[in-house]
């Protein structure tokens, strides 16, 4: 695996921007906290410096303006104001886009002019820089210099400097020892010798200054052109003695101590690229498979010692897999933290006061799951703020606190994580949902539907209850997309709502995507895995029933009609059905489908492998896994199959 500092920088920039954003959000709540100001400044500073290092010039240039603004805040020159913080927040978004490399320049310009306005409003006045000149000489130079006494202690080697001078041209060097004290008073590492040099050759003034680059400001030095014959020679500037007294750093000391204490508690971390974890996961998966083959062999034979080794390896492989799973887990705080900004933006956009409360942030979820949960949660939160929460005056009229509450909470239950998004708004308007559902033909006028079914309508494609589509929620994705995303994570979504009190949306997500419990089945000659979490029950389909149901694809299960798919037909196996076929009833949310298989082989814990890009266009399969004998079994995509079952069924009914 090759090292790529630019790639590392992109990741780092993302983290820095995240820190800056969190710092800004905290600062917005406490505008006088200089610790936060310093932290934000430092983040911007690092971003600028590293950005320039790795060729992100536009990013460095843009960030420079924000850094400068914050430097002025840091120096007490400009006050931190909500406006200024908000501008830098949007600047952060633009910086993200610059890191990604697709940032419209106009956006940057607009932000910079807002920034200038915000800075002016928070202060007044400006500053101007000063440039420096340089000039060449013809014949040579005469110089006289003395290093600061502590130069040697501070790592400067005078002999190396003399060598560098010699390398420039023909050089004569004479030491001046007038300042060297009697031996008794001599401090051995003080540099008290001065030097007079003549340098002959076509040497630039800059080249000489380069030699003394690091000590120039603190040393005594005169550089004069050698006495010149030709009258046209210009009077070269003489670099003068410049001793700058260093002033002690006026840095907020207690703030630094705070931060040091904070970082100490975090413990040591090792940063590992995600793909290395995935590779390790693959290896562990292979180990588990090899182990199960070993254990089959061991159990067929009579060798007791082989069997005991096999059991030992089985235990170790199992533990390793569990440890591996834990390595991939990250706390949901990394997810929840990102919504503070969203809530702030939503509050600004809607003019509502909104408070965000988060709970259970230490709950851990597989990193892939976290990443894929972000967009659905954004949509749900937008919906809650936009449609759920009332305006302050309406809330007060209803006897509620003026500011609306969004509560995000996470907790683990068994192999699942439950994430709930609660608002204390007006609740979902059932009448409106009903009217909309009737208008869309989802239900018949007057049809009796249960509470759950009615609320479930909001997950239908194209469904939106807002009388007018607002800027917030009307972004082309609906709750149907949210639902599909959650289902692709093998999770489920559920909504509850009480009129006048608010709504709660609950997401149930498996802890990990890398391993599932599956039901191994046979269809024709092929073996397939059905994710166990989706399985509701298994029924027998006798030959007579099968024959009787020819032409129909629907069974009655406890007074409910359930469509079913004959996988043998779907997969065109060309085989005869087994005498005792089974129906595996699977479901996502409220929808069910029965899958007719030839045989149920048993439970199987499965390491999920991705399908090749060559099979990207094949629906029906969510991935593949390797069985104990080394062969491959495909994992059924339940969401796809359920969807496949529904519309055909509806078509059938419509045709009847």
């Amino acid at each position, binding site marked *: 695996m090759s*090292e790529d*500092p*630019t790639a*590392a*920088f992109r*990741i*780092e920039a993302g983290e820095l921007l995240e820190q800056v954003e969190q710092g800004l959000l905290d600062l917005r709540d406490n505008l006088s906290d200089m610790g936060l100001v310093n932290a934000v400044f*430092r983040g911007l*500073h*690092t971003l*600028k*410096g*590293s950005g*320039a*290092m*790795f060729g992100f010039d536009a990013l*460095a240039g843009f960030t*420079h303006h924000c850094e*400068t603004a914050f430097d002025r805040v840091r120096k007490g020159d400009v006050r931190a104001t909500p406006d200024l913080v908000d501008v830098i927040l949007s600047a952060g978004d633009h910086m993200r886009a610059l890191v990604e490399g697709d940032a419209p320049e106009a956006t940057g310009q607009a932000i910079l002019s807002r920034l200038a306005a915000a800075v002016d409003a928070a202060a007044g006045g400006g500053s101007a820089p000063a440039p420096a000149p340089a000039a060449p000489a013809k014949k040579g130079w005469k110089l006289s210099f003395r290093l600061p006494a*502590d130069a*040697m*202690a*501070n*790592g*400067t*080697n005078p*002999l*190396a400097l003399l*060598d*560098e001078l010699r390398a420039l041209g023909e050089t004569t060097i004479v030491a001046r020892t007038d300042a060297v004290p009697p031996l008794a008073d001599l401090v051995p*590492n003080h540099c008290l010798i001065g030097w007079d040099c003549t340098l002959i050759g076509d040497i630039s003034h800059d080249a000489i200054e380069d030699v003394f*680059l*690091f000590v120039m*400001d*603190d040393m005594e030095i005169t550089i004069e052109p050698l006495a010149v014959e030709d009258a046209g020679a210009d009077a070269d500037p003489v670099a003068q003695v410049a001793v*700058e007294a*260093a*002033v002690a*750093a006026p*840095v907020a000391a207690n703030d*630094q101590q705070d*931060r*040091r204490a904070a*970082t100490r508690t975090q413990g040591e971390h090792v*940063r590992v690229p995600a793909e290395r974890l995935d590779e390790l996961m693959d290896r562990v998966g292979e180990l588990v498979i090899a182990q199960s083959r070993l254990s089959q062999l061991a159990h067929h034979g009579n060798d007791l010692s082989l069997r005991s080794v096999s059991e030992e390896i089985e235990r170790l492989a199992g533990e390793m897999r569990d440890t591996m799973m834990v390595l991939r887990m990250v706390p949901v705080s990394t997810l929840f933290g990102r919504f503070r900004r969203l809530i702030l933006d939503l509050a600004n956009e809607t003019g509502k006061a909104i408070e965000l409360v988060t709970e259970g942030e230490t709950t851990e979820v597989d990193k892939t799951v976290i990443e894929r949960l972000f967009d659905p949660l954004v949509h749900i939160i937008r919906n809650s703020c936009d449609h759920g929460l009332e305006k302050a005056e309406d809330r007060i009229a209803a006897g509620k606190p003026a500011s609306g509450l969004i509560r995000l909470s996470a907790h683990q239950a068994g192999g699942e994580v439950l994430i709930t998004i609660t608002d204390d708004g007006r609740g979902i308007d059932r009448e409106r949902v009903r009217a909309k559902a009737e208008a869309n033909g989802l239900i018949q006028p007057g049809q009796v539907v249960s509470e759950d079914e009615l609320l479930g309508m909001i997950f239908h494609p194209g469904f939106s209850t807002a009388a007018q589509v607002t800027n917030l929620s009307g972004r082309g994705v609906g709750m149907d997309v949210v639902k599909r995303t959650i289902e692709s994570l093998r999770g489920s979504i559920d909504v509850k709502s009480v009129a006048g009190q608010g709504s709660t949306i609950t997401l149930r997500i498996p802890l990990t995507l890398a391993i599932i419990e599956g039901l191994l089945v046979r269809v024709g000659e092929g073996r397939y895995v059905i994710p166990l979490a989706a399985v509701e029950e298994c029924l027998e389909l006798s030959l007579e029933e099968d024959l009787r149901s020819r032409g129909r694809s629907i069974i009655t299960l406890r007074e409910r009609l359930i469509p079913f798919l004959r996988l043998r037909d779907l997969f065109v196996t060309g085989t005869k059905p087994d005498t005792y076929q089974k129906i595996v009833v699977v479901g996502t949310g409220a929808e069910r489908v029965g899958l007719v298989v030839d045989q149920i082989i048993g439970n199987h814990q499965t390491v999920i492998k991705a399908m090749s890009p060559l099979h990207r266009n094949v629906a029906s399969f969510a991935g593949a896994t390797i069985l104990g004998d080394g062969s491959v079994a495909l994992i059924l995509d339940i969401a796809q199959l359920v969807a496949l079952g529904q519309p055909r069924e509806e078509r059938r009914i419509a045709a009847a």
Partner: protein
Amino acid sequence: MTASILTVDDSASLRMAIRIALSGAGYAVTEASDGAEGLAKATAQRFDLIVTDLNMPNMDGLEMIRALRQQPAQAGIPIIFLTTESDDAMKAQAKAAGATGWLVKPFQAEQLIRVAQKVLAR
């Protein structure tokens, strides 16, 4: 003998870039991710050169340089700090703290190597 260099920076990408440049030029490079770690490593092992960022959490570069220069064993060890061109005041502070020289960000690998060679001469 290979000269050993300690690079102290909170930015992993920068450390990586510095390490790639310097080890490519034949130096042995050790990394530290903040001032405290840098101080600990430099105290435990003598380096021929220390290259450090200034702006870092958990003990910044200035504090680290001051702390190092208080140790007699660190006398004479060159310390190069990384800075941005706008940072003249910072430069003065770092010099006063005992730094040997600096390198202005952004820099090319060759510039870094040249500076290392300059202060490591003989």
